[in-house]
């Protein structure tokens, strides 16, 4: 600052290799493009794979049964998996950033379970608005978990995880209770749904889901630069001009909406929001301007592939997609936990 800045470090002052601003932008764009292409490729290929062999040309020529299988059995399910995967992994990034906790995710925080209670209530009482009930359950659990983990102005990561585990147990106790009082057909619906399986849904339902999930995701992604600062700290962001209060409230509302709506249709599917963002962070770094759009597309591709596997691995029997993601995600979570303990400041 005083003309000749003083160099006090013993190291030679040769600036390390640095990226030109344009290169940073173009790398981000190409990473996003690759993720988008992967998502589209998975979305196009998955409906063709399955126990019955079908061809795309016959499906588009409305030849039976290829047409029915493609458009009414497989495509809606693939679309649901893609929208759900995208929403869950964007929510994972969002929660990790806001809570400054790499282990945070709708499932580990108990938010998915809260949504499940809402949905099961809906099934038991024959209500149609399961989506709204799920959303309410998700938001309620989020509030409770945050309330428990808040110590003054700070969140304790340890308490947060324990609160999440506890809320999971409570939510499942409630679900078991509801299950035990349900009629036979309700009981079947509940178990199917709880396994986190993806079923073919009607196009009108899909349209509603997309109409809410896509704009919410877009709004979250648009704020990427602010999330960067929030991921470092509240004061850090506030002293650099970010309106942290409004941003955090928006984040929690968006996270509850995404988790609640998706869970009401797919059942509790765990760890998507953990696996996808972490794998991407290892490769792309922490900048949310790359991480968020890539998580959106990679999440879509990931759940789409998981669902295809769940339909085909031991066909004609289906493994629920939630079982697959949990089998992959559980060990991954433990690995994260271990590697974090080794790091310097924990």
């Amino acid at each position: 600052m005083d003309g000749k800045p003083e160099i006090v470090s013993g190291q030679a002052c040769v600036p390390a290799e640095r990226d030109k601003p344009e290169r940073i932008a173009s790398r981000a764009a190409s990473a996003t493009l690759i993720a988008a292409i992967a998502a589209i490729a998975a979305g196009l290929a998955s409906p063709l794979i399955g126990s019955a062999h079908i061809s795309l040309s016959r499906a588009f020529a409305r030849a039976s049964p290829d047409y029915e299988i493609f458009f009414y059995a497989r495509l809606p399910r693939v679309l649901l998996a893609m929208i759900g995967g995208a929403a869950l992994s964007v929510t994972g990034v969002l929660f990790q950033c806001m809570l400054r906790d790499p282990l945070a995710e709708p499932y580990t925080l108990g938010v998915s379970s809260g949504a499940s209670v809402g949905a099961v209530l809906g099934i038991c009482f024959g209500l149609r608005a399961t989506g709204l009930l799920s959303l309410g359950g998700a938001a309620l659990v989020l509030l409770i978990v945050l309330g428990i983990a808040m110590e003054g102005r700070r969140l304790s990561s340890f308490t947060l995880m324990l609160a999440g585990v506890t809320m999971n147990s409570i939510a499942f106790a409630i679900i078991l209770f509801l299950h035990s009082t349900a009629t036979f057909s309700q009981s079947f619906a509940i178990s199917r749904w709880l396994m986190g399986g993806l079923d073919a849904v009607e196009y009108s339902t899909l349209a509603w889901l997309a109409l809410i999930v896509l704009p919410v995701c877009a709004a979250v992604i648009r704020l990427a630069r602010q999330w960067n600062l929030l991921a470092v700290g509240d004061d850090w962001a506030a002293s650099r001009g970010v309106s942290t209060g409004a941003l955090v409230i928006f984040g929690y509302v968006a996270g509850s909406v995404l988790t609640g709506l998706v869970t009401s249709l797919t059942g509790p599917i765990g760890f998507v929001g953990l696996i996808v963002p972490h794998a991407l962070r290892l490769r792309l770094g922490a900048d949310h301007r790359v991480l968020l759009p890539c998580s959106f597309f990679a999440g879509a591709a990931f759940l789409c592939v998981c669902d295809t596997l769940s339909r085909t691995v031991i066909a004609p029997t289906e493994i629920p997609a939630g079982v697959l993601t949990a089998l992959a995600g559980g060990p991954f979570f433990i690995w994260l936990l271990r590697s974090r303990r080794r790091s310097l400041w924990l």
Partner: protein
Amino acid sequence: MSFRARNLAFAYGVADVSFDLDACGFVAIAGPNGAGKSTLLGIMAGLRHPYRGSCAYENVELRQWRRRDFARRVAFLPQTVRVEFPFTAEQVVLMGRTPYGGGWYESPQDFAAVEEAMRTADVLPFRARDFRSLSGGERQRVILASALAQQPRTLLLDEPTTFLDLRHQLAMYRLLAALGAGGMLVVSVTHDLNLALQFADRALVMRDGRIAGDGPPREVFSPDLIERVFGVRVEIDGGWIRYGR
């Protein structure tokens, strides 16, 4: 004039504080643990509210400042920052440009300001490294660079030398004094009375949330005041504070 506080008080820490600060110079805030130094700095940075009394910056009450406008004038350095995610040192510094950018990416001017700030804080050699892999002192200098990248008129620092080795402590104080002489207002909480004595233009001494001494360090840091505030007997010897055994 930059900051003007009148009967400033907060729920904890700060009980009744009044002062006027010039637009430039190096002001050191000293005092024992729990005297309210950090809380005062937090209020001045616009991070602790609601406060009672009045605290204005450039004649505008703090609560009336728009965050973004305020962030272009006042930068704040916390004691330490804990980052959980793999941001590089340069990305951390780039965040200092947020109050200037409306765009998705930083502009070439932003990168130029970051380059300059990183040179001043002597962190260019590890710009591409993961912030989490840096030592405490290196991290503190990266945080300083991030604050300098805001190109502020006023710099608020909370014990900026906690993790620094002797050489970098001196370099930090020289830099702060130079910034103060160059037209910036630098306000720093410090525990090192001798460094404050050598480098600061003005010392504010706090005790129990009140101002116990205010003026040029050589006048403020008298053996009397230091014993009254810190409960330690000292001698002033050749312009240095000597602590008894």
